Every structure is written in C-alpha cells, then in structure tokens.
C-alpha cells in the first residue's frame, strides 16, 4: 500500500463515534532494542495528562533479539487490569505482526514500520504505515543508535494521532533524561519530525483519542519492587543479603540505589545498613537470619526457586525464633518455569515450608502502596513475634509500573519487640530473677531475647536448632519439646491484631462473595462492576495476611457460595481456607487459572458466570 495515502476503511459500528481515554495500546518490539524508554515516555505523559494508565511489559527470558510487548491501558474509569484485546497495535517486529493482528478488536488500529511486509491484513482494522527508516535517515543519527531512536518515531506518530499534548511529552522526555540537553534534543528531534510527518501524511480515520483530565493528585507511578525496597528502608532495614533472580532482583537493586540517599549518617556519611550479594540463596537466607539473630532489621528477597532453597534455613529461624523478612516476588513455577511471567503459585509452599510443624506469617500486598506499607510493617511483626515473615508479591506487581496512591509515611513508631540490654538484665538480676531466653513470662507466648554485644555477664545464650528448654539448654525431654512447640503455635496464632486485616467491599443484595488477594485486585474491582452491570451485585474480601483474621471466617459464613479467585493451577488459597474453615469447605468455589498472564476482568466474569449457570 502507498506510503502517502494510508488505506482507510469505514468501520460501520464505530463510524464517527469517538473513543476517549478508554482503550489499550500494545507496542511490539524486539528486546534489547531499547523500547523501554519510548514506552515509559508515553506512559508517564498520559499519567501527567491526568489519565489513569497502567503499563505491562511482556518480555522473554533472554537478553536480546526475542519478541517483547508493552501494553498501555488508558481508562478514564480507572480500570487498570490487563485486557485481552488491543485497540491499537504498534508493530516494529515483523516476526510477530500476524499473531498480534489476531488479538485486535474490530475497528482496531495497526501502526507498523513500513518496511514490514504484512500479508493478510484484516479487513476490519485500520492501518497506518510508519516510514521509520526514512525519518531516521533524515535525522542522521549514528548507525549504532538507529534501532534505539527508531522507537522515538512511533512515540511521535502515535502521540500525534491520538492527540497527546506534545508539551507534556517534551517535559516527560526532559525528566527521563534528567535534563541531559544533548540526549533530550536528539530524541525530541525524532519525535517532532515523526509527529510532523504524521500530521502531513496520515488522515485520522480511527476513533481513539486522549483528552486531558484533572491532575491525579494523590497518585504516583511506581513499580512494586521499588515500593517494597522503600517500605523496607522506611522500616529501618539494616541488613539484606540477596542473590540475583528475575523478577526479584530489582527489589534488592532498588535498596542498593536508595539506601545511600536515605540512610547514610548526615554528619559522617557512614552507612547504617549493609547489603551483601551472597553466593546463593542458601547463603542469602543464612546471612539474613544471622543478622536478624544479632538484632538487625534483616531481610532477603527472591523468587520461587530461591524460596525452595531457603526451606531448611527458614525452619531454623521459626524454631530458634529469629526475626527475618523474606520477599517472594512470584514468577511462574514449578521449577525454572517461566521466569519472566507472573503467577501466585507459591502460596501453599509458603504455608508449609520446611520439615516438621512450622507456621509462617504471610503478607499479601495488593498494590505498590501496600508493598511500601507492608515493607515497614513486616519488620515490626517479625521483631515483635521473633519469627520469619514472608511477603508474597509477583512479577506483575513487582516489575511493572503502576499508578497507585502515594505512599503513607509510617503512622506508628517502630516496634523492636522484647529485647533486653545490659541494664535490663541487671535489673532482673537485682530483683533476684533469672532470665530464660525461651520463657513465656508474659503469658503471650513471646519470650525476651538478648543480642550479641550485650556485655552483661548473664546476657549470653547459646541458640540451637535442636531441642532446648526455656534456658536454652539442650533437651530431649518429651514434655519440654511439646511445651515449646505449643508455645510457638500460641505465639503466632494469638497475635492476629498484628496482621493486616482483610479489605472488604460490599454491594447491596450481594448474590455471593468473592475472595482474592495480591495483584489480581484491579481485575476483581473491574469484574465486580461488570457483574453488577448484569444485575449481579457481589461482596468482596481481599485477604492481606495469613494466619487469617476472623473477618475471613465471618465473610465465608455470610454467603452460601464464595468464589476464591487466584492465579495458580490448584486453587491454593481455596486449599488453605478449606483447611482452616472446614465447616465452610463446601461453600468455597475455586476460580483458578495460570498461564503467565495477569488475570483479566473478562476472564473472571466469564468463569464466574459459567459456574453460576451450574
């Protein structure tokens, strides 16, 4: 087709009807080609225009040369979940254009680099060729940078065609390159030229447009891993040992980036923290537990395979009562699985990790703001209970940039738990009392601990993963063992006030309940509105921690059926709920599915409707 006059077709049903701030664009490129910058400039520009947006990166598990997609959803209503079809596709990769066409709605728009030969263009879509090579040549950029700036061409063309505010685009560009004049100009030149070319050569024949909306005042754009790292830092993170793994690496790397800014002593510039890149996950958790035992706010961050390797060590921490925080940014398992895709498949593993009777506090943040909040709260819980706390997020939540409520500064002072220093021990001694590391003196199941470096001659104790009595003496006495294990159970189960309570949303005349957790929240919100639109009001409980709070029990009892929606194969949350609330077992219906893609509201609605028909 000619480059000057793009083929345009009348798409009856859409004719004339303008679609504003409510569509999805997917940018198809090759990884390693540097499209990230281009995509984020579009994403952040739209956000600056006040339009609710979400960006999702679907990338391969290699470094260069394979297809990668970036989807930007605009939703004036604020729906930010994944949608299954695209309204606009920007195709820079010949290899995948055919398959992309299959996922376009009727009346969709296809922008494509005009050197791509496309066979069998769908009749019901609008196509705009983009003279990428030509525009690059005219802009004469050094050859090695051509692939890279090529992406700026689609920024310019798409921005113009959907009516973005070019001024905002420039500001975003300027911010992105931290004001580096040269970089900004060279990129802007391309964007401008591309936009100009579009205005002169393309006739808009599609309905997709953007319009400014009121500023999104109390929102920010951030990825979950950055939020998690910052939450931990504001929680007083002192030590973290980690081992690289997708999708968790950027959590530790964000800590490495922000700690020096936030946590070096203002006078001396010296560090109040330490980060160690360990030789593997066994060492990472071992170091973290060592540091937690020594009194530091300590954590590690990893993904499924790392958690599996940490199993033995976490049992030691549970049994010796060492506070430590473990982040699991979930990817698709089992085994190496799909390292660059998202899932919620490590939940039952977390619940039953390590041999013997164990129990771990599990936190389930639902958005980046909650990653921040749970980041600092986790340390308070871990130190108060002297036990490991696991925080499960996932690749979608952790690595994608989300529009979320601004972080709230911690509203409570730190809780360092029951720690005795020199003078505390001395006081006990003077009162003729003897301190026992594992004695439940307060009757709340939580003993007092001392920390290495405490110079009181009575402060030291010998921690061990073998049977021990209240004075930490080695013991194989049956009664001593059972007493100790019962106390551990009591310790975790009798302090639910410490765990984030579930979030509950109700509708009048709800037909049934829905339970979900973690990153699927956005899809649930949208799905509930879609169901309500079909006169199916629902109530919704989002689990935010395990052990479950009583609200969960009440919720389950309130409906004759509750759908438990999750992103795994076996319905793991359903399994855990059935275990704890056996009397409600038959009221729970599992809605589980995992293929590496974030759940869509559409899938949730259809699945529930199908089950409702039964």
């Amino acid at each position, binding site marked *: 087709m000619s480059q000057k006059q793009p083929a345009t077709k009348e798409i009856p049903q859409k004719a004339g009807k303008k679609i504003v701030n409510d569509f999805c664009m997917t940018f198809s490129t090759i990884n390693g080609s540097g499209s990230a910058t281009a995509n984020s400039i579009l994403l952040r520009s739209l956000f600056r225009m006040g339009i609710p947006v979400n960006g999702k990166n679907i990338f391969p598990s290699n470094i260069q040369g394979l297809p990668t997609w970036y989807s930007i959803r605009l939703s004036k209503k604020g729906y930010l979940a994944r949608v299954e079809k695209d309204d606009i596709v920007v195709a820079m990769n010949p290899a995948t254009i055919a398959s992309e066409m299959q996922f376009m709605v009727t009346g969709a728009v296809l922008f494509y680099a005009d050197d791509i030969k496309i066979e069998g263009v769908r009749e019901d879509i609008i196509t705009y060729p983009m003279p990428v090579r030509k525009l690059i040549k005219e802009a004469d950029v050094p050859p090695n940078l051509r692939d890279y700036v090529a992406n700026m061409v689609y920024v310019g063309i798409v921005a113009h065609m959907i009516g973005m505010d070019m001024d905002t685009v420039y500001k975003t560009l300027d911010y992105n390159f931290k004001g580096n004049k040269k970089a900004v100009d060279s990129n802007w030149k391309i964007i401008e030229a591309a936009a100009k070319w579009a205005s002169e050569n393309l006739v808009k024949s599609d309905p997709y447009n953007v319009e400014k909306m009121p500023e999104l005042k109390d929102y920010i754009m951030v990825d979950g891993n950055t939020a998690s790292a910052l939450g931990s830092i504001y929680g*007083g993170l002192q*030590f973290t040992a980690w081992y690289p793994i997708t999708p968790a690496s950027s959590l530790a790397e964000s800590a490495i980036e922000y700690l020096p800014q936030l946590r070096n002593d203002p006078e001396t510039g010296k560090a109040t923290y*330490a980060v160690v890149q360990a030789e593997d996950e066994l060492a990472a958790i071992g170091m973290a537990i060592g540091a937690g035992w020594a009194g530091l706010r300590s954590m590690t961050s990893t993904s499924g395979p790392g958690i599996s390797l940490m199993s033995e060590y976490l049992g*030691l921490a549970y049994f010796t009562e060492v506070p430590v925080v473990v982040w699991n940014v979930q990817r698709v398992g089992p085994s190496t699985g799909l390292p660059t895709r998202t899932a919620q498949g490590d939940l039952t593993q977390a619940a039953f990790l390590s041999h013997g009777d164990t129990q771990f506090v599990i936190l389930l943040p639902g958005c980046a703001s909650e990653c921040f909040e749970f980041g600092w709260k986790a340390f308070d819980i871990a130190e108060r209970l002297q036990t490991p706390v696991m925080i499960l997020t996932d690749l979608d939540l952790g690595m994608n940039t989300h529009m979320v409520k601004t972080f709230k500064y911690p509203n409570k002072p*730190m809780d360092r738990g029951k720690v005795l220093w020199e003078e505390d021990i001395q006081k006990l001694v003077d009162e003729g009392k003897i301190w026992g590391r594992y004695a439940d003196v307060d009757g709340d199941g939580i003993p007092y601990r001392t920390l290495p470096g*405490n110079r009181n001659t009575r402060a030291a104790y010998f921690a061990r993963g073998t049977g021990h009595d209240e004075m930490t003496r080695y013991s194989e006495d049956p009664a001593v063992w059972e007493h100790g294990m019962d106390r551990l159970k009591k310790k975790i189960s009798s302090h639910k006030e410490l765990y984030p309570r579930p979030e509950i949303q109700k509708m009048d005349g709800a037909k049934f309940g829905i339970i979900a957790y973690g990153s699927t929240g956005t899809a649930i919100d949208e799905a509930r509105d879609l169901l309500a639109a079909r006169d199916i009001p629902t109530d919704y409980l989002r689990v935010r921690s395990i052990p479950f709070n009583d609200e969960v029990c009440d919720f389950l009892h309130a409906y004759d059926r509750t759908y438990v929606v999750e992103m795994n194969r076996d319905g793991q949350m359903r399994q855990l709920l059935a275990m704890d609330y056996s009397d409600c077992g038959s009221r729970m219906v599992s809605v589980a599915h995992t293929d590496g893609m974030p759940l869509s509201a559409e899938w949730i609605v259809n699945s529930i409707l199908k089950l409702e028909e039964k």
Partner: protein
Amino acid sequence: MATQTQVNLAGLTRNEYKGSASTLCQGCGHNSISNQIVAALYELNIVPENVVKFSGIGCSSKSPAYFLNRSFGFNGLHGRMSSLATGGMFGDVTLKAVGVSGDGDTASIGMGGFKHMVRRNVPIVYIVENNGVYGLTKGQFSATAEKGLELKHRGRNAFGPVDICMEALASNATFVARTFAGDPKQVKEILKAAFSHNGIAVIDIISPCVTFHNKEDSFHSYTWGKANESPLHDISYVAPRDEIFIEDYEEGTTQEVTLHDGATVVLKKLEKEYDPCNIYEAFRAIEEAEQNHWLLTGIFYIEPGVPTLFDSYNLVEKPLNRLTEAELRPSKESLDKLTKHFKL
C-alpha cells in the same frame, strides 16, 4: 570479683572461660581443642562477652557449648556456619568471632559457603575439627578421609581427600594453618596467633575420632598423628602485655610477622627455612606434604593488612544493633521528595 584463684589481665579466672560439660566421647580430639580455646582466650585476656561463637552440625559443631558460656553462640545448620556467621557478625563488628566446624560440615556440605567466606575475608577464627569421618552419624567417610582408607562397615574410600588448607589458600585466605589436637601447645599457639589476625584465620586441626576413626594407619588417628607429625615450625605468640615467653627465644633465630593488632607472631627458624608470607611456598609445601602423606603442621601462610569484609563497608561507629529509630527511619520530608519524583 575478688577470688582466691589466679586471674588474667582482664581480671578473669580460667573458670570464667569454661563452657558446659562436654557430651562428646571420652578422649575425643574435639574436647582437647575446646580446652585450648579456653586457654588461648584466657591468656590473650579477651573478655568472653567480646566473643561470639558459631558452628554447624556435628560432634565438632557441638563443642562451642563446651567453652565460653558467657559468650553468645549459635549452633546453626549442617554446613551453613559460614553464612550464619557472616550475617551474625554484622550485628556488632567489634566482637571477635570463632567458628567451629567439622570436616563433613565444611568440606562436604559446607564447601561452597566456606570458600566464599574465605574469599570475603570475614574476620573470624575458622576452626575445622578434622577427623575424616562423620562422627555424629556414626562414622561414614567424610571428604577429607584419605584415599584407600578402609574402615569397618565402611569399606574402602575411593576418592582423594579434600585438603582444607589447600582450599583456603586457593580462595586467598589471609591466615592458613594446620595443627594436631594431640599437640595442645601448638594448638594453643596457633589459636593465639589466629585470634590476633584481622581477617579470616583458617585452622585445620586434625582431631581424631576415637570412636569411629582411629585405625592405626589412618591419617586422622592419634597413633598415625604422633608418628608422622613433622612440625613445620614451632610458633610462640608474643602479645604486647605478655612477657612470659620472650625469654624463651633468642634474637636472630626468629622471624616476626606483624599482625593487625600490633601483636607479632614469632616463628622459630628450622633447618629448612620457611617463609609464611610466600604463597608459592605455601602451595608447594602443602602439595608436597599431601603427595608424601606428611601431616605438616604450623602456619602455612599469613597475609596481614588485607581489608576484611567489614572494611569494604563504610559502617557507622556504633554497633548496628544498637542504632535507634531516629537513626533508622528516614524523615517524612525525604518521603515527600520521593513522592514528587514518582509523580513525574
């Protein structure tokens, strides 16, 4: 605490360095090592509260319970002492650390962690109580059992032994020594030198398992040890505040190595001059000993002044585990700044 019994310069009696009663077998080499740790720290006038103990799992790893009751200790997981200690020491880097492991604990399951701990030059006295068997699980061959060794119920060991000192050296350890539990004097002297070294001090102590590994002809048995031991050099330690030994050594016959804390290790020259600062010599000596089945003891290598793990972190003076909320939680303002940043 005015007692009748003798006290050291720290004002402590030997008893105050003791631990709980040992539950190891009578005559186990590990017990005599525990005694020498007590003796060394007593003579070094190191206060127990300034020491932290770590171990893995095994008979050897139990022994930290049998010395220094007044020191904190963590008897962790099998083969994982390295990581537990590395993290644990960050709590208060002013503490001196001693780790006790076994040959199974270090050379089998713990090999990886051990190598990386050495590589990071974590300032700890890392003792391997080496008996060539898994004592606590009743005597299976460990990775340091010599090739061809036969034990009852165990048959013949088909593989060559891991040499702890060679491994330490290959990972650039800054202090590498070997001694023999049956030679308390040398054990103590090497321990004192090690405690004065600022960096990792790996000590491979051949420590016979009287119960499962004490065949006449075995490398790790007393009999073999006594017969084949060929001390590389006789060490005696001279601490600043300690004159006692000085007289024992005449000038000229000794060579000094200055250790981090200003103390010096004095090596008595043997017929065959040995320079513990020459890494080539160290490799040669260890390799040669292995080839000739010698139990070569002494300090093979010392490299003072190498930055430790902690030196590579620019940490605040105050021990990290004593920092307060004021020092740990950034300001509200700093968060507002970040919020702006995430809006753009």
